[in-house]
Structure formats: C-alpha cells, structure tokens
C-alpha cells in the first residue's frame, strides 16, 4: 500500500452528490436546531424535506447519464441499481418526512434531532446502495440502524416506546455481532472483502463448512434487518411502540436496506454458493410467510397487524432468492423480482402507515375496533384504506398485484420441485393474507361507526401530500407496472455484472 498515493482514488463528486446533499442537510438541520427558538423549529422539517427532494436532482442526472461510476477499487459504485435504490430510499424518506411533520409537531418531540437522525439513517442507506465491499456495507448498515434504535424510543415518556427501543437495540446488536462474525470468517476464508473478489474466490467453495457457517451467520444478520421469521420477534413490539412515522421508516427503509444488503451479498458476492443460501432463504421465506400470516389473523391492533404483514411481505420478497438456488436458474430474474417487490412494497406500505397516522390524528386508537365505520365518517380516508390494504393483499388493479406477479414469475421461471412447493405455500399465504387485510377494509367500510372522533379536521397538508403521492403511485403502478419493472430492469444489469 505504501507505494500507492492518495490521489489514486479520484473522488467523483457528482456520483457522491446525493450523499453530500444529505450530509449538508444534516448539518443545516443541526445548525438550525441550535439557532431557532422552539416555535420555529418546524423549519428543520422543511429543510429536511427540501434537502431530501434536492438530493433527487443529481440522482436524476446520474440516471440520465447512464454510466457506471466506480470508486475506491470498486468498493463504492454508482450504477443503475444503486441509483434505483437510492431513489427508493430518498423518496421513501421524503414521504416519511412528510408523514412525520404533523406527527412530530403534535407532541413535544425534539424536532431538530429527530430529523437529523432520520437523515443520518437515510445517509446510511444511500451508502449501502453503493457499497460493494463488506466494510462499507457494514458501516452503512450501522448508520441505518443506529439512529433508528434511538428514534424508536423517541417518545421518551412512553414506556412502550422505551421498550420498543430497547428490544430493537438489544436484538440489533446481537445480530450485528453475528453478522460481523460471519463477515470475519468470509474475509478469513477468502482474503477478499470486495464483492467482485468474493464472487471469484468463493466460487466452488460451497462444500466448505466454514464458508457455509459464515454465509448462514450473515444471512441471520440480514434476516434480523428484514425481520424474517424466526428473527422477527422484535418487529411487532417495536412497531407498536415506536412513533408511527418511525415504524413506517422501519418497515420500509430499514427493511429495504436489509434487502439491499442481502441482494448485494448474495447475488454479487456469493453467487457461487447459491446452493447454500438459497435453501436457507427458502426456509426463512416459507416460515416468514406462514407464521406471520397466521399470526396476523389474530391481531386487533392495526400497527401490530401491519408489523406481521411486513414480516409476511418479507417472506414473499425472499421467495425469489430461494428460486435462485435452482440449478441453472436465472439469477437476474430472481434479483429483479425482489427489487420490483421492494419498490412496490415500499410505496404501498408507506401509504398504509400514512393512513394510520391520518386515522389516528384525532385520537382514534390503533385498535381495529376503533376504525369501524371510518369510511362513513371520512370516505376519502376510507378509499385510501381500501387502496393500500387491498394493494398489500395483492388485488389487481392495485400495485401489489404486480409485486406478487413478479414474485411468482421468478419462481416459475426457475422451476424445480422445491421452488414450486414454495410457490404453492406463497399462493396459500396470499389468500390467508387477504383475509386480514380485508378484515381491516371490512371494519372501515362495512361496519357501523362506533364512536365519534373529531374527524372533520383535515389532515395536515404534508400528510395529505404523502397520502397523495403514495396513492397515485399505488394505482399507477397497478395499471402501468412498467413503472416498477424499470427498477427491476436496472437491477438486472447489475446482477449480470
């Protein structure tokens, strides 16, 4: 190394522009938080929202440019996949900021710090999308989750929130330790940390027990992030206890970050040992779908229900991974399917949480019984509930159908008895899932209103914007899935590389 000069590594500022903008925004937010008097602190929110939006601009340039920018020996790459995922993270974060605005303002929270931490987590996910070696990936993951441990406990006075935070934190560091142990072995076995190098070095090592262990340990680490069964236990408790926008962020950005990690490591770093990770993920997928769906049937609290739903959805997203393990399977297809699912899931799940925030704004609890006849009181919100929950259930013509479609497609494309069995499990689970999603819609639309809430007050503008964006996307993607497949297409490029 000694010979190498620092200047060997050219820093491509355009490629890093989104990250830099986010960093700048963070600093401005911090500074503003110091200067502004309490009543004016909402400016921090405005800045965060604006900064996130602004970060999309260079992203657009990069997308149009259509060129792979690689830095630091290929450990940090800005390509189509990275851009798509960064776009997803930014948009999702943008929507979460919109949702947070009224929520955070309505109680006594630390606004500046709140936005700072969320931006930090966002920064982590942006870094992850570009990471092409284990260290960057690891640091990225830590930056994503670290702030979230604290944000889940943001309602400091609420013991539930404390508990959410603690559970998330303890299991989070356990998973970090396990992940790191796996990484250390991977490094030890190959001497490589870049994904490209790992792919080369691990090819044909599928029989090496130590490698198997390393891979499995890493899977467990990621499985925690995406809350796959049996590493999901934290999710319902944390989702319920955390502030709702954070829950939305957890279920979308954080989960997406987990999937990004998993996608990168499995497909880019370890394609040669797909026969190891695919069966493992098969198992996780089957367990996640089945256990979570069955559990969700029993839920009476919407947020808990959404938590289990998100676990189940993670199971669906894992299905293509399992399909990739079939001999001769088209890894690109599987890869693309997960990305498509992820994009669509992000949109509709954010929408669902936005609806939860909107519905609970006037003192309605998250208990399903409190939602009875909501549509009678507020038909527009009722329509939104129907759209998002049916979309989650995968009912055409709402976006969710295409996610499931892509998922099934990837399974069918692979063939093989085990994957077909998984497809059948998935199909059965899709119907089970429909039941509890429909239960929510039923409550909202078909049941009589139970109690009077002051629903005449319109949701805040930012929340309406969040709802608007998500609902339009949900419906549009349903009719024009090409909007989502574009993401998958981009991902395909990277998987072939």
């Amino acid at each position, binding site marked *: 190394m000694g010979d190498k000069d620092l200047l060997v590594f050219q820093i491509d500022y355009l490629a890093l522009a989104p990250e830099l903008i986010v960093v700048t925004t963070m600093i401005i937010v911090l500074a503003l938080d110091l200067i502004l008097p309490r009543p004016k602190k909402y400016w921090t929110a405005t800045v965060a929202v604006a900064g996130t939006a602004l970060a999309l601009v260079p992203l657009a340039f990069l997308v149009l440019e259509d060129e792979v920018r690689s830095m630091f020996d290929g450990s940090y790459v800005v390509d189509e996949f990275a851009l798509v995922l960064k776009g997803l993270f930014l948009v999702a974060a943008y929507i979460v900021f919109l949702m947070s605005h009224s929520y955070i303002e309505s109680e006594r929270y630390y606004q500046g710090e709140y936005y700072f931490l969320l931006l930090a987590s966002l920064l982590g996910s942006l870094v992850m999308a570009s990471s092409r070696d284990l260290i960057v990936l690891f640091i990225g993951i830590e930056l994503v989750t670290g702030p979230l441990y604290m944000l889940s406990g943001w309602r400091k006075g609420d013991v539930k929130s404390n508990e959410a935070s603690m559970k998330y934190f303890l299991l989070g560091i356990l998973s970090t330790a396990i992940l790191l142990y796996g990484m250390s072995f991977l490094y030890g076995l190959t001497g490589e940390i870049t994904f490209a190098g790992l792919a080369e070095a691990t090819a044909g090592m599928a029989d090496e027990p130590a490698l198997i262990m390393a891979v499995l340990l890493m899977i467990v680490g990621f499985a925690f992030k995406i809350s796959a069964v049996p590493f999901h236990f934290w999710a319902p408790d944390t989702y319920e206890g955390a502030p709702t926008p954070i829950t939305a962020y957890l279920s979308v950005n954080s989960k997406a970050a987990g999937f990004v990690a998993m996608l990168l490591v499995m497909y880019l770093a370890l394609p040669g040992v797909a026969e190891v990770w695919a069966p493992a993920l098969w198992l996780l997928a089957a367990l996640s779908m089945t256990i979570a769906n069955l559990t969700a049937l029993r839920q009476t609290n919407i947020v808990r229900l959404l938590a289990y739903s998100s676990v189940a959805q993670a199971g669906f997203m894992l299905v293509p991974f399992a399909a990739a393990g079939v001999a001769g399977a088209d890894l690109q297809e599987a890869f693309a399917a997960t990305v498509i699912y992820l994009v669509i899931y992000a949109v509709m799940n954010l929408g669902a949480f936005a609806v939860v925030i909107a519905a609970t704004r006037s003192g309605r609890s998250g208990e399903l019984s409190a939602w009875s006849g909501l549509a009678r009181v507020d038909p527009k919100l009722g329509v939104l509930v129907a759209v998002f929950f049916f979309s989650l259930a995968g*009912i*055409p013509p709402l976006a969710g*159908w295409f996610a499931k*479609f892509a998922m099934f497609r990837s399974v069918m494309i692979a063939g093989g008895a085990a994957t077909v069995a998984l497809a059948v499990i998935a199909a059965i689970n899709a119907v089970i899932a429909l039941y509890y999603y429909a239960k929510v819609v039923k409550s909202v*639309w*078909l049941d009589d209103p139970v109690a009077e809430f002051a629903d005449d007050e319109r949701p805040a503008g930012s929340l309406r914007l969040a709802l608007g964006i998500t609902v339009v996307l949900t419906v549009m993607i349903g009719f024009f899935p090409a909007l989502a*497949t574009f993401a998958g*297409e981009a991902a395909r490029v990277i998987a072939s590389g």
Partner: protein
Amino acid sequence: MEWFETWGLTLTVFLPLVGVVLLGLIPKENESALKTTGLVASIMTFAASLILIARFDFSSNTYNTYQFEVSETWIGAINANYHVGIDGISLPMLVLSTFVMVLAVIYSWNHWDEPKNPKAFLILMMILATGMNGTFVALDLVLFFLFFEIVLLPMYFMIGIWGDKTPRKIPGFAKEFETRLYAAIKFFLFTLFGSAFLLLGFLALYFESGKSQFGRTFDIPQLTELGASGAFSGTFAFLVFGAIFLGFAVKVPMFPFHTWLPDAHTAAPTVGSVLLAAILLKLGSYGFIRISLPILPEEAVSWAPFIAILAVIGIIYGSLACLAQSDMKRLIAFSSVGHMGFIMLGISTMTDIGINAAIIGMVAHGLITGLLFFIAGSMHHRYHTREMARLGGNIKLMPVMGGILAFTAMASLGLPGLAGFWGEFMSLVASFNPLPGLSLGVFRSAMVIGAIGTILTAGYMLWMLQKVNLGEPGDEWEGKEFHDVDRFELAAWVPLIVLIVVIGFFPKFIFSSTTDVVTSLVDMAFNSETTAAISSQIGG
C-alpha cells in the same frame, strides 16, 4: 372515423373510467348530476360498442384474427403488451356488457339500496364496467388477468356496503353474521383462490412459450398459434389446464365451486346481482373459450369429460337446490348454477355447435337472469321481503310486474321461442355428438341427464311463480298501496324483454357474429373438419 379502428376498443373500455373521474369531481349532494353523468358515461360506452358492431367486418371473421386490434408495449420487462382486439366471439359479450350497464344505471335511478350514496355506487359500477369490458377485449394474458380481477373490488364493496343486512347463521360458526359480510368475503376469497391458480397457469404458459419462435409471451394470439401447433402437451399442459380450469370454474361457477354464488347474489344489492349474473359469471366461461380451448386444445380434450360431468352435476344440483329455497333471490341465484352448467356442457363438447350454444347461452342467461334479478330487486323494494312464503298474489297487486316476472321465468326455463332455449337445446345437440375421440358414453349420458335437468328447471320456476305471483295476496299486504312498475323500471326492462324475444326467434342475431369464428376456432384447435357436418360417427 379512422381513429376508431385503432382506438375504438380502448374507448369502449376506458370511457367508464372517465365517468369515474367525473363522478369523483361532482359533490355527493348533487344527486341528479351524478346520475346524469353515470348515465351519459354508460350510454356513450354503449354507443361506442354499437359503432364497433357497425364497423365490424363480419365477412372476415375467422379465429385468431382480430379486429380493431391495438398492440402497444405495456410492461416491457415481461413482454406483456396492451393488446386488445375483438372477434365474433367477444363482440356479443362486449355489447352485452355495455348494454346491461346502461340498463343498470337507468334502473338504479330511483332504486338505491341503503345506505344510498349514489356517488360511490355509480363509481363502483363504472369501475366494474371497465373491468368487464376489458376482459372481453384483452388479448394478452396479463392484461386479461388484470381486467378479470378489477371486477373483484367493486363487487366486494357493492355486496359489503349495500348488501343484505339481515343476520344469518353460518354453518360451522357459532355466532351470526350479517349476510352481506359473509357473502362479500366469501365471494372475494373464492374468486381470489381461483385467480391464484389462474395466474400460475398463465405464468406456466408464458415460460413454456419461451421454447417457441415467439420467445416468452403472454400474447393470446401467439399462444393460440402455438397451441394449435401442439406446442403445449404432456403433464405440463395437463397441470396448466387444471390450474386455469380452477380459476375459471370458480368464476363460472361450476359445481362444486359454486357456493359463493347463492350467497353473493342473495346478499348483493339489486344492480350488483344483475351485473354479477349478467356479466361477471360470463367472464369465466368466456375465459374457457378464449384461453383454455385454443391454447391447450389437447388438454381441453382430455379434460372435457370431466368438465361435462361437473357441468351436468351442476345442472341437476343447481336445480334441485332451487327447489329447496325459500328466498326468491337465492332461488334465482341457484338457477344460475344450473344454467351455467348448460353453458359449460356446451363448451366441454369442443364442437362448434357446443361453443355457439355456450355463447348464445351466455347472452341469453345474461339477459334473462339479469331481468329476473331486476324484478326480484323491485319486489323486495316494495314488499321488503324475499320470503316466498310471505309473497303471493303479486300479479294481482302488480299486474305488469307479475306479468314480466312470469314472462322472464318462462324464458329462464328455456321456453322455445325465447332466448334461453337455444343455449340449452344446442348444448344437448352438441353433447350428442361431441368432438370425435371424446367418450360418447359420457357425453350422451350428459345429454340425457341435462335434458332431465330441464324438467327440474321448469319445476322450480313454476313453483316460484306459484308462490310469488299467483294465489291470493297474503293478509299482511291488505290495504297497502303497491306501485306497479315505474318508468325507470320499464325503461330498463323492456329492452331486455325485446331482446329475449328477438334472440328467441332469431338466434342469427348472435350466430351471425359467432358461427364463422367458432367454426374456424374448432378447426384450428382440434384440426378437424367442421363438426357440424355431423354424419360421421352415428352409432359408433
């Protein structure tokens, strides 16, 4: 009008959605504007479909050539296209759909079930219209699936919100449920269960087609071509057909997947029942003709006896179940099981006669059962009960309504000279001589049993008339004012009545559109000389 050649179908499919947008903009309170908008949207859709008829070239009406065809890239990644087009098979179905929708809007003018809310209801109807019209014109499996499923949500809400609110004991559950709640979720889950398999089947076709010159494709015309050349065979095709069969059979519905139907029909608001019976059920049988048969002809043949048996069981089963009903609407609902059995029997023969029978049967059932549900709804509107034991002497209280009911019941039992006859009769004709190679024993038994089914059909229809229409009105109605048929009802019903008679005496009305294309479909799929030249295998 050149643009119409390419965009006519798109217009027909999506005009209702324009209606949805407009309806969304009109405030809830402005009821008359809402109704007018809904009416105008549906009439314009109907008009568009009439222009389609006018410009349809009946002379070049062979299978797998489509008119008003449009193919635009839709989901490039999976090679799914916005590919629409019609032929002589889809044309009648499409027009039926647009036509019934107009009548439904007219009827609903002053018939709003609780909790009213015309705006929401009309919006749902318009979405439904898009789904139904789209299914009949889609030429891409993914597009077909999408439209096929679109109808699910509006119908769910129709049943769930405006449906029957009486509590009901559900076998297997301890507590009572409101009928609408049970029916809505049941309808939803059943259909979705079928759709899941449908989707799997479509995907399997997609991948299998990858081996062909077209590459992986969802395109129905291309798949049809492949199917005709025997590209899909063996266990694979057998399973695929089974999966697709399941999807369509639930929708049709065939025995034993029918149990959602009585509940859904009974619980749905009037217009919902009408649309459900008139058009939604046809989506399944249409799917058989459009997808199962041409794309998987070999498997269709090997599944045919099974389908025929189920169809015949459905005929007898549905009719017998009708006899046990005490609820008028439920009876009519069960009658659909029997009638759709005839349609499926026709399809299962795989002959041009049978398929023509199915199509005319679909149209006829749409008109007749639609009308029956209209009447049942109107009667419920006036009597506030559907218990046949409490009704009676309706024709005395409301002669016109009673007369129309009697007429429709007669049409429903397949009286020759009315529309319902042709489907039943020709199904039986077709099952006498199914496609060569199919078991004559099965199909001829099916023919006999199906014919016996017509007796039962007559039985329950007459019995219903006796209970509802005839005799002296019960004491509880004494002194009550009953308004006979009002002008909206007449406006909605008379066109149906006229069409029932016209098709009854002049089936060419439908056949002129279907016969050539069906013949070439059978030629193409089963590679046989036209089976209407029946002579070959008598006594064989």
